[in-house]
């Protein structure tokens, strides 16, 4: 038994930790592209913003898609609620609220991440320091994850935390795929072909999968393979199938513990069944964009249902 408000705090704490790291990863991928392909740098940054879902708010504030502006907006601007700094701050506020549910190690790692990033992101980032700042962000979130997995009891507190992590992650992966795929694919007829294009790496890099991709598929970047990897691969920790495997598992634990099933259980199972049955060919035949749009909508619905079913809305 957990206070509804505590479940809420755990859920959002983890969503925001995940988001803080995702932003760093997106900027990292963008930076990489901008460095290797100087001509289309501004296009690349614009697609980074699109993937982050922050293009509209960005354009209200800036006119130039430069590394400095985008990094500033996505990493340190606290008026952007999804920026790394804002996300870490929200995560910490939630952690503070649910302190009693966290191990000392977990709380301290979040608090220390907040202190370190606050110091590091206090001033605009010098472009020369950007790689080390991105590393530091990833290191801090990795430390949080490590303390969390290493010390937390696998109970309902853990379950609600993981629900937040995977709902956020699934949303993030689906958006990146949806946005980037169409920016990058010259025409739909290219779908089956091998592309000798560094840009494909940016999709994989956005989800830290550019190396592991080569362990699973050929060294060539094939659009179908990339989509298969990010949507259907069971072992890839940021794929939609992977996220739903764990969402279903933690929802099942909660259902068993409390002896009660809710609407969220049905929704998660439906999506999982759909992912398990599907092949990448089917998805492309029916339309990747439609598939992803449906997925994002159902994923949002799942988040809302979890909040409602466990009384933390």
């Amino acid at each position, binding site marked *: *038994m*957990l*206070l*509804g*408000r505590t*479940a809420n705090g755990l859920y959002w704490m983890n969503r925001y930790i995940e988001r803080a790291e995702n932003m760093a990863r997106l900027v990292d991928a963008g930076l990489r592209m901008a460095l290797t392909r100087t001509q289309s740098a501004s296009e690349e940054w614009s697609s980074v913003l699109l993937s982050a879902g922050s293009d509209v708010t960005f354009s209200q504030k800036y006119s130039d898609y430069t590394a400095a502006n985008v990094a500033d907006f996505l990493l340190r601007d606290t008026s952007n609620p999804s920026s790394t700094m804002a996300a870490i701050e929200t995560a910490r*506020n939630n952690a*503070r*609220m649910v*302190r*009693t549910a966290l191990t*000392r190690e977990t*709380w*301290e790692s979040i*608090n*220390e991440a907040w*202190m370190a990033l606050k110091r590091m992101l206090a001033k605009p980032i010098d472009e020369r320091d950007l790689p080390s700042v991105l590393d530091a962000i990833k290191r801090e979130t990795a430390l949080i994850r490590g303390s969390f997995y290493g010390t937390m009891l696998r109970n*309902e507190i853990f379950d*609600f935390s993981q629900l937040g992590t995977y709902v956020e992650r699934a949303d993030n992966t689906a958006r990146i795929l949806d946005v980037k795929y169409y920016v990058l694919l010259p025409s739909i007829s290219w779908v089956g072909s091998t592309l000798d294009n560094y840009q494909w790496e940016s999709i994989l890099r956005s989800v830290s999968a550019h190396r592991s991709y080569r362990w699973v598929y050929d060294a060539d970047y094939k659009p179908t393979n990339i989509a298969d990897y990010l949507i259907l691969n069971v072992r890839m920790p940021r794929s939609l199938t992977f996220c739903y495997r764990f969402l279903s598992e933690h929802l099942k634990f*909660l259902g068993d513990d*409390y002896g*009660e099933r809710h609407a969220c259980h049905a929704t998660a199972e439906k999506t999982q069944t759909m992912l398990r049955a599907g092949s990448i060919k089917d998805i492309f035949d029916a339309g990747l964009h439609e598939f992803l749009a449906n997925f994002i909508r159902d994923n949002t619905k799942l988040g809302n249902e979890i909040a409602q079913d*466990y*009384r*933390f809305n």
Partner: protein
Amino acid sequence: MRLAAFDEMLPEVSGLRRPYSAYDRWLKEQDPARLTEKMQDAERVFRKTGITFAVYGEQEASERLIPFDIVPRIISGNEWRRLTQGIEQRVQALNAFLDDIYHRQEILRAGRVPTELIARNEAFLPEMIGVRPPAGVYTHIIGVDIVRISEDEFYVLEDNARTPSGVSYMLENRETMMQLFPELFQKIKVRPVENYPQLLRQSLAAVRPQGTKGAPTIAVLTPGSYNSAYFEHAFLADQMGVQLVEGQDLRVVDGHVAMRTTEGYKQIDVLYRRVDDSFLDPLTFRPDSALGVPGIMDVYRAGNITIANAPGTGIADDKAIYSYMPEIVEFYTGRKAILGNIPTWRCSEPDSLKYVLEHIHELVIKEVHGSGGYGMLVGPAATKKECEAFAKKLQAKPSNYIAQPTLALSTCPILTDKGLAPRHVDLRPYVLVSDRIQIVPGGLTRVALKEGSLVVNSSQGGGTKDTWVLDD
């Protein structure tokens, strides 16, 4: 002005005091550079664990640390025994006074305390008249502020009978000291304070409502994570293994207070509330309060929940009542107070007011209802202009103030850049009341870090020290 203060470690006249002898031997063997390092370690530990407090009115520094000094304040076993006798007597009297004041009011009829002091006091809650809390306990947790001015003279500065804070610092200070100087605790036998959360939990469980079935469900009620003492609320809930709830989590269900959980509403039997009386129940007190629970007072009056401390206990620690404490102790315990009061002028009395105005530069003047060191004047430290301005406020509403002589509070050494230096201290031991009275050996020592300063409040630049009661 410098006062000749009694130093608890090294008094000028008699030299090193016994309780400090073992510590002093150890200290002399230490490398000063290492001690400075340890001091920085301590600060890092506190920041990391997030032991911060908020200072009202300072937006930027919304989370600050209370500075911690690594030199312990040491009390001998004998000194402690004498103190605890006095504290126990006082706490008994406070509870008896509260029970009387909300029932037969015999002390008023006997003329020992003026009736108008109660009747027109905001801390007196008419809603509590005739209500008897579960197990008859009003103040379950008390922090008695004690000052020392010589080898044998201890005085009570203030009784905190509402929601005394700071106990988490007592615990974290000890924890930090044990981390920094494990070898010291092997050399010197210090009585433990670590079991305070267990004692608190047992104490709260012991005063559960009569009708409670099975083990009582206990919760800590906090105003929320933006409250200055939030860290402590979370800390205590965590250490006791109980839920930390906010008003928004609670509501009255079937005549009981219940919290909204992931499995629906669950009944609460004992609520350790860290929310002020006036915010506790919008249906009874402040209607705009979102921090409390609508209807909790009805549940309370029906005997279905224990609220610790009980609503209305503020009447016992009110600064206007304070000056009557010697009479109150004697009235209920039949004996003279073991622990004395600091002589106090009630400015509501014309003769006293006259005296206070004439001696304003020598006195400490406090608001009757104030706390945290806000709204007070330390005469000897104030400029002539400040004294004049304060005198005007005083004349406009004399009953709002009391005055006390500026006492030479005892000092304890702190570690500074230039080595040890004496600073004024006070002491807040924590007392738990259930079917018995328990006092944890130690407490919170607050220290004025500024040289010569007498204000130890954390909101005014005070720090803390670990407090050792020797097992001798």
